[in-house]
Structure formats: structure tokens, C-alpha cells
């Protein structure tokens, strides 16, 4: 399978076949994420279309690193644009401009699948998993998470960090064995 970075180089040269290959490989990731954030299939399709047309019209926005990580940030930000149009207090964007770094990102994410992550997430405690999922997919700020689950803000932040660290360690273990 041709590397996504190489396909993006071809997209820069206006190669529609390379674009189609990227669409086939990543559209379910983008659509699934948008659907989880928006809970609306039509709106999720709109986000998916917007993300891929942005990729086609401005391929230079991808500045190397892991393509999957980059398109996740673009897709989530786009889905949050739709959330923001409904809510007055939504959180900020994920930083798209920072290149993806780290050994796991470079190697493991190329082979990761949804089932693997779902199994890893199930190994977190509910106290860790709930604020992470609410924060990532829920389109809410950490203050709103604290209110919703009824714990102090500091506790929410600590649980999020410990949960993410544990998730990273579980996934790393899963892919280096």
C-alpha cells in the first residue's frame, strides 16, 4: 500500500487518483469521528465532504508527519465548527499546525484500528474514560465536563491526564509486542 505521505505529494501535483486512494483509506475515520461528535449523519457527511475538499484545495496544509493524526485534527476541528454554531461556549481547536511527533505516532498509528482502540479504552477506569470521551467527542469545555460529572475541575484535569497516559501506554504495549 502506498504511503499516505507519498499520496499527499501526488495530490499536491493535482493527481485525482491519489486523492481518491486517500479518500478510500480515511473517509470512514473522518465520517465516524464527525458522526460521534455531531450525532447527525447528514451533518457528518457535510463535514467529511468539507474535510476532503479542503485537503484537495489546500494540500500544503499537511506539513508531514503522520497523515492519520493530521486528518483527525482537521476533521475534529471542522466538526467542532458545526458544534460551535449550536453552542455559545465550545472549546478551542486542536493545533493542526504542529507536526505529529513521537515513535507511536510514526509507527503504530499506521497500523492501528478502531477495535484495538476500543479494547484499550475499555481498560481505563470509568473515571478516566468518561471525561476523555466527553471532552474529545462531546464538544464541551473541561468546566462543563466538571459540572456534568459533578467533580472539581482540578480532578477532571488530573483524570484526563492519567487516562491519556494510560491509554498511550496500553496502545504502545499492544503494538510493540
Amino acid at each position, binding site marked *: 500500500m502506498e504511503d499516505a505521505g507519498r499520496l499527499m505529494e501526488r495530490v499536491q501535483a493535482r493527481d*485525482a487518483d491519489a486523492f*481518491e486512494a486517500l*479518500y478510500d483509506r480515511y473517509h470512514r475515520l473522518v465520517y*465516524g469521528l464527525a*458522526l460521534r461528535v455531531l450525532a447527525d449523519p447528514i451533518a457528518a457527511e457535510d463535514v467529511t465532504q468539507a474535510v476532503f475538499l479542503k485537503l484537495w484545495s489546500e494540500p500544503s496544509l499537511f506539513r508531514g508527519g503522520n497523515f492519520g493524526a493530521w486528518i483527525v485534527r482537521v476533521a475534529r476541528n471542522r466538526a467542532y465548527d458545526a458544534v460551535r454554531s449550536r453552542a455559545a461556549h465550545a472549546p478551542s481547536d486542536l493545533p493542526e499546525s504542529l507536526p505529529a511527533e513521537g515513535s507511536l505516532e510514526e509507527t503504530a498509528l499506521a497500523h492501528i484500528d478502531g477495535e484495538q482502540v476500543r479494547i484499550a479504552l475499555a481498560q481505563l477506569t470509568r473515571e478516566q474514560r468518561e471525561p476523555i470521551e466527553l471532552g*474529545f467527542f462531546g464538544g464541551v469545555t473541561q468546566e462543563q465536563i466538571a459540572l456534568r460529572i459533578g467533580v472539581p475541575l482540578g480532578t477532571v484535569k488530573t483524570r484526563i*491526564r492519567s487516562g491519556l497516559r494510560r491509554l*498511550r501506554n496500553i*496502545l504502545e504495549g499492544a503494538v510493540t509486542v
Partner: protein
Amino acid sequence: MMTHDEMLDSVAAYALGLLSADEAKVVAAHLETCERCREEYRFLQPAVTALAYSAEAGAATSSASAPGPLLKARVMNRVRAETARRSVPRDWPAYALAAAALALAILTGLVDLSLNHRLDRDRAQLAAQAQMTDDLTAPDSRHYRFAGGEVLARGDRLYIAMRDLPMPPPGRIYQAWTLAKGATKVAPSVTFTPTRDGVAVIRLPEAVTTLAAVAVSNEPEGGSRQPTTKPIAMVRI
């Protein structure tokens, strides 16, 4: 004043995209100068990306969470239209292309008395295909989704698009049905089979403005006058 441990918690919230714009600016500026926090950000970032994969639509989840069958057509139509505009010089009139094709046909002895008829038929087919592509990809078309597909309407024109449709066994076929507004019985519409990829995109001849619902059922080859099996798809318009 924030302690460094509190800042590390904020880095996690930043990686997860939970901070307000002002808070995010503070953390981003801190990351510029603090190697330890930068390390933490790099460590956590892959876990954040992985979260998105847990929502990936696909075989592991139900087909209802998959995007509609026309989404790819809409996206690729825009992309291919742009590349087509690039590859054909804008000042080259369409008739010049047709004339070149005709000249080639004459040279290779393909012209015969039926050419005009064939050209008329081909032109009509091309026009219908162009209309269909236009309708299916237009932002103002109306979508009525059901599990496994959607009915799409634009102007008076009506289409049904389905995915993951198994090829019917020999002697069987799919048939569309329409329910006119105020009617109590469905009327038979076109019959069809999907492509080998399980996709069917069909134009129904009925005017959408006269209809209340559309359905599809599996029927004997040649079609039926009334459905003989339970509809596999039904959508109200």
C-alpha cells in the same frame, strides 16, 4: 500561580482540545520554552489521535454508521471536474472535439447511414448521465435517508441510491414502488439489479412532487403489479 504539575494537567487538556482559546494560547507559549511539557505533549498526542480511531465507521460498527453511497460521488465529482477543466484548454470549443472525432470516424470507415441515429441516442444518454451527475452532487438536492441508502430529489426528478445490496438470485430482481399522495396502494416503478459492488443508483420516472413515499422489494424477474415480499427499504418523502 499555576504549579508545574497543574501545567502538565493543562498540557493534557490542551492535547485533547479542551481549553478555551485564551487558555490554549498560554499553554502553547509555555510549550515553546519548557522541554518537560513538550515531552508530555508528544507522549499524549498519539493517544488523542487514537481516540478518533475508536469512532471509525466500518465493519466493526453497524452499516447505519457508514456514510451514504453518494458521498464519494459528490466529492470525486468536484475533484474530477477541476482536473478535467485543467486538462482541456478552455478556449477549445466543444464542437472542435466533436469534429475531430467525426473526422477520425470517416477515416476509419465507421460512418454509415445509421450514424445520425446512433449519435442522437448517444447524445440523449450523455445528457441523461450529465443531468443525473448534476442532480446527485448538487448542494440543493433533498436527501431522504434510510438504512442502506437514500432517496434523492431535485426539482421534479427522483433517484434512489442503495449500497451493500446483495445480487438477487437467478430469476429475481429488485423493484421500486411509489405511493402517490392520498393513495392507499403502492404503484409499480422500475426494476433493477445492483452492480457487483452492491451499489444501485436508479432514476425513477415518477415526478417527486406527486409522491408521498418510495419503497423497494425483491420480486420475480419482470416485476410484479403489487409487492410480493416485505419491502427492504421504505422512505417517506
